[in-house]
């Protein structure tokens, strides 16, 4: 049985997610898969995403993977990354599309013309290393409070249920950058590109028994 399946719905580069998982779990069987059966049978599922949300939703359905992802998100250790976090919600302002609706809430865009305290323009996409203020969860084990992770995104999630929030970050305003519910954990940043802190989170994920 596959230990970790990385869901491949044809959007962007999944190599780095796969490489980082191999680094933290050298003995595990890790596959990048677009096969619903493989994903359904895997012990753990990573749901990444890059690009625009409408394309991601369309490609997921074109490949017939929606049900496998829904099942995994409800039944086994599941890690959403970037658009893989945003797609869990009900609706996105990006393209005005519906998401998977696993979590109540929506996805909004950062405002234009944001400025920092010195009056400098805050660019969109929010790109680079930002501090993550996290709560208590096994996936944060061994990760310093306010550790920096690598982000690149223009949209952010607005969960309806505040108890889902596992971390926030600051970009002109405070925004939610991690959520969790039972067996599900999802982050806006890219742990696979976040050096030591990111690898630690992935290691925590492959060892997590919710």
């Amino acid at each position, binding site marked *: 049985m596959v230990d970790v399946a990385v869901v491949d719905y044809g959007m962007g580069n999944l190599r780095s997610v796969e490489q980082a998982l191999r680094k933290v779990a050298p003995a595990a069987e890790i596959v990048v898969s677009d096969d619903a059966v493989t994903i359904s049978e895997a012990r753990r599922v990573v749901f990444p995403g890059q690009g625009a949300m409408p394309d991601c939703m369309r490609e997921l359905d074109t490949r017939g993977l929606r049900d496998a992802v829904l099942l995994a998100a409800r039944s086994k250790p599941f890690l959403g990354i970037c658009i893989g976090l945003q797609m869990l919600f009900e609706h996105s302002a990006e393209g005005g599309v519906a998401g998977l609706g696993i979590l109540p809430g929506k996805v909004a865009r950062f405002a234009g013309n944001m400025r920092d305290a010195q009056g400098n323009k805050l660019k969109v996409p929010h790109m*680079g290393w930002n501090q993550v203020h996290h709560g208590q969860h096994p996936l944060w084990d061994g990760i310093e409070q306010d550790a920096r992770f690598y982000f690149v995104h223009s949209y952010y999630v607005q969960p309806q249920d505040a108890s889902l929030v596992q971390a926030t970050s600051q*970009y002109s305003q405070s925004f939610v950058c991690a959520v969790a519910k039972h067996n599900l954990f999802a982050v806006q940043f890219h742990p696979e590109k976040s050096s030591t802190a990111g690898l630690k989170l992935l290691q925590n994920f492959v060892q997590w028994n919710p």
Partner: protein
Amino acid sequence: MLAKRIIPCLDVTAGRVVKGVSFVELRDAGDPVEIARRYDEQGADELTFLDITASSDDRGIIFRIIEQVASQVFIPLTVGGGVREVGDVRNLLNAGADKVSINTSAVLNPQLVADAAGRYGSQCIVVAIDAKQVTPGHWEVFTHGGRNATGLDAVAWAKKMQDLGAGEILLTSMDRDGQKTGFDLPLTRTITDALEIPVIASGGVGNLQHLVDGVKKGGADAVLAASIFHFGEYTVQQAKQFMASQGIEVRL
């Protein structure tokens, strides 16, 4: 708070990192994988590889280098040089690049930027602009490693690239590249103020104060440098500590 990024740049040809002065006179700086690993350990925020190979026969080398680096270094990797079509973007992403930098081909075929961003997302499309001052306050875009003038105004061009879907601009001053006299700050400030997307300042870093100036005076979101790191003048960590001491938010 979001940290300003420090990005060592590795010019690669024939499997080696080299560094030139104003795009000529190449000097060997070592093995790319080894150098990438060292910069990662020193706390580099990203790495940029520019494949400056002239012959298409050697193009395969950059893919092997990226594959090796990507399996050992877990920070964002940008690769540029010789990207002509969407297929080139795909191949570099598949080799392990996180972002692909497009320069000359964007000028020859601006639709390439739109197509690549549409297919793979703006987050992985960097447009590299080589700009040269023509009159005070005006800069022109050059291509082919700085040999060909395009007649394009750098500010208008940067805006057009943003509109077509570029996620970031890598801005190199051709007047300053390799000169070690600091970034062209008016150029950097003008472009970054004109855009909504992040701008990486490049070209001319000779000391750590230049990095600080690029952020504080130039308004850059990230600073790129090559020779000050390659030849051991400063480590990335020293650069970051100096920037932090000057009140710049960095990832230490």
